[in-house]
């Protein structure tokens, strides 16, 4: 009896099978690698956003006692508001310099810095902040008041590690001596880095003052745009879907509509911007850069998406419900509005929210209708201003910041992205929750 197993035994893997199995393994590994690359990219993106964006929520502040000198602000001394208004922001600079000097004296810090460099550690928005304070109540002149000023963007950059003494060696905006002074001031608690609510709530600032810019007004701009999108695209989308799904006869015309809708859904968003510019602004003469026009453009862009998802949820309502309604003599219209639409509502809302989330993150069309640049400095006062006053929107504001030269704006762009993503995340979570909660299995 020999011990050799036959060559075709199942217990022995043939060479061919071995190589085939190796190929199998390789193939599987490729798949795993692909997934890992995808997930890795997501991780890189997420960590970049967090690492680069969170610092935007903190800002360097300088706390100073400011004496509102009568000799500078109201030379005549009669507290006449018209005279005081004549003092421009420029006239407030010496007061700031005095305040810095005073603070240094109080804390026993010596410095060789000149006037200009001393006031340079404070944001360029400080004088107007002071001026507004004074004009609000002229009786404040002559008093000494504690103020918290934003530090200049370069100083803020030093605290956040964006600049070092070496990197500003040739800069005309900041100097190593200023940084030395800041180090001293940090020790005595005059300069400190704190959470900055104004970034979330405030308005954009000119490109000289990155430290003073915020995304709040753009958030409001986005809000008004979304309002327009919601108010238009939900009723229009539902009406169109109901017509196509429940009433339209199959003919050339409805075929044409269907084809158009599925193609519109894939038209590049920038083309909708061109449409908005040519039709809404140049032809209908709607005001440029306004959330109303932005909303109209985004409505046209999201409508196909909403129609497609609405039709899917109408389709998912079982025919037996329709039969039941028709069988007791409900008209088709009553069947749709009493039974089919209410049952499809959760699906419709989910689709609408997802469509709106897409619209919220869209920026390309907004560039063309002029929602970029340094446009809105104030919160809109009421609804009509919210819709009709030039404003930016979150993604357009982020783009605007990304374009500006000062790297301090890049930090703010990433910070803005965090806020944008929080909104998107909330909307998508809402959509998922809605779907989970009301999902019906027939």
């Amino acid at each position, binding site marked *: 009896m020999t011990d050799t197993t036959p060559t075709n035994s199942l217990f022995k893997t043939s060479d061919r099978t071995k190589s085939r199995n190796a190929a199998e393994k390789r193939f599987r590994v490729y798949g795993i690698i692909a997934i890992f690359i995808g997930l890795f990219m997501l991780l890189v993106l997420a960590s970049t956003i967090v690492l680069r964006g969170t610092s935007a929520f903190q800002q360097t502040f300088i706390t100073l006692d400011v004496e509102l000198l009568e000799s500078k602000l109201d030379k005549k001394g009669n507290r006449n508001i018209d005279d005081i208004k004549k003092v421009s922001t420029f006239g407030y600079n010496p007061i700031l310099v005095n305040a810095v000097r005073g603070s240094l004296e109080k804390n026993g810090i010596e410095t060789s810095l000149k006037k200009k460099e001393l006031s340079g550690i404070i944001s360029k928005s400080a004088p107007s902040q002071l001026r507004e304070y004074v004009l609000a109540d002229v009786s404040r002149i002559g008093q000494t008041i504690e103020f918290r000023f934003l530090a200049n963007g370069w100083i803020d950059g030093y605290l956040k590690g964006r600049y070092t003494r070496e990197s500003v060696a040739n800069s005309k905006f900041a100097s190593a001596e200023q940084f030395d002074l800041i180090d001293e001031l940090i020790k005595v608690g005059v300069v400190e880095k704190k959470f900055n609510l104004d970034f979330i709530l405030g308005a954009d600032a000119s490109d000289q003052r990155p430290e003073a810019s915020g995304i709040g007004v753009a958030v409001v701009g986005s809000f008004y745009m979304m309002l327009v999108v919601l108010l238009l695209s939900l009723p229009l989308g539902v009406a169109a879907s109901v017509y196509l799904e429940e009433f339209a*006869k*199959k003919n050339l015309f409805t075929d044409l509509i269907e084809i158009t809708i599925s193609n519109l859904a894939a038209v590049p968003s920038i083309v909708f911007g061109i449409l908005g510019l040519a039709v809404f602004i140049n032809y209908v003469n709607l005001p440029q850069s306004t959330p109303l026009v932005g909303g109209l453009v985004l409505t046209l862009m999201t409508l196909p998406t909403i129609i497609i998802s609405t039709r899917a949820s109408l389709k998912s309502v*079982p025919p*037996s*419900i*329709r*039969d*039941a*309604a*028709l*069988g*007791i*003599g*409900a*008209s088709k219209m*009553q069947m749709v509005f*009493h*039974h089919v639409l209410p*049952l499809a509502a959760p699906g419709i809302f989910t689709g609408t929210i997802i469509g709106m989330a897409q619209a919220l993150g869209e920026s390309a069309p907004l560039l063309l209708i002029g929602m970029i640049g340094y446009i809105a400095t104030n919160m809109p006062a009421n609804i009509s201003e919210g819709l009709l006053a030039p404003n930016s929107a979150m993604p357009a504001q982020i783009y605007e910041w990304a374009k500006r030269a000062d790297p301090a704006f890049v930090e703010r762009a990433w910070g803005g992205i965090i806020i944008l993503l929080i909104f998107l995340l909330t909307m998508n979570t809402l959509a998922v929750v809605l779907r989970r909660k009301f999902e*019906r299995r027939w």
Partner: protein
Amino acid sequence: MKDQLNSDREASLSNGMPKITAENVNVYYEEVHALKDVSVKIEQNAVTAFIGPSGCGKSTFLRCLNRMNDTIDICKITGRILLENEDIYDAKVDPVQLRAKVGMVFQKPNPFPKSVYDNIAYGPRIHGLASDKSELDDIVEQSLRRAAIWDEVKDRLDAPGTGLSGGQQQRVCIARAIATSPDVLLMDEPCSALDPIATAQVEELIDELRQNFCVVIVTHSMQQAARVSHRTAFFHLGSLVEFGDTEKIFTNPEDPRTESYITGRIG
């Protein structure tokens, strides 16, 4: 005993003019010729049963009687169907009004995903059958009682109709259909989802209903047809093979196809 019952039934028939008259009805689903030249007279205060093998066109014909086929785009109908001498396919006829007069109960129970009360009240509401809430309450209670489901649901009128058992759902659907007080009630295999007890209740109900309505029922159960109906129509491959008194069809059919079907040889 059975003869006794049948002759009772005959006696209670009003032998006036037919409620529904179908003349040369043909139905096409695109290429499928689903009904071929069907002519039938359906009487008032009687139960008419449609029997026949699966796919022979029973449901199709039933759906012609209240124009539910209008909802199927590809469905084409020729011929005439008269409801009390009025052509229901006339252009002037509003199918909605027709369906209020000719109610329908479907094979699969299909309650609305609303409360039991709203299910029943829906028809009366859209047709404006009640002038106030108490009248509506009355209609709901009466309909549920007549459908033999009142005792089971009277304490849960606000519970969703979809939460009931299949048999209960079907009886709610029947109650819903009779709540609009139609003249004719079409029932497409109403008992296929029911247990024997519920089936017996529904059959009892059918017998009671025909006192006021004209009832047409599609069934696959020969026994049921024999039990509840006065007239029976046998369909085969889209044609009406034989139509006549139930007793005669089941005891002495004229057509050999009918005989082989009821004795279980085709179908």
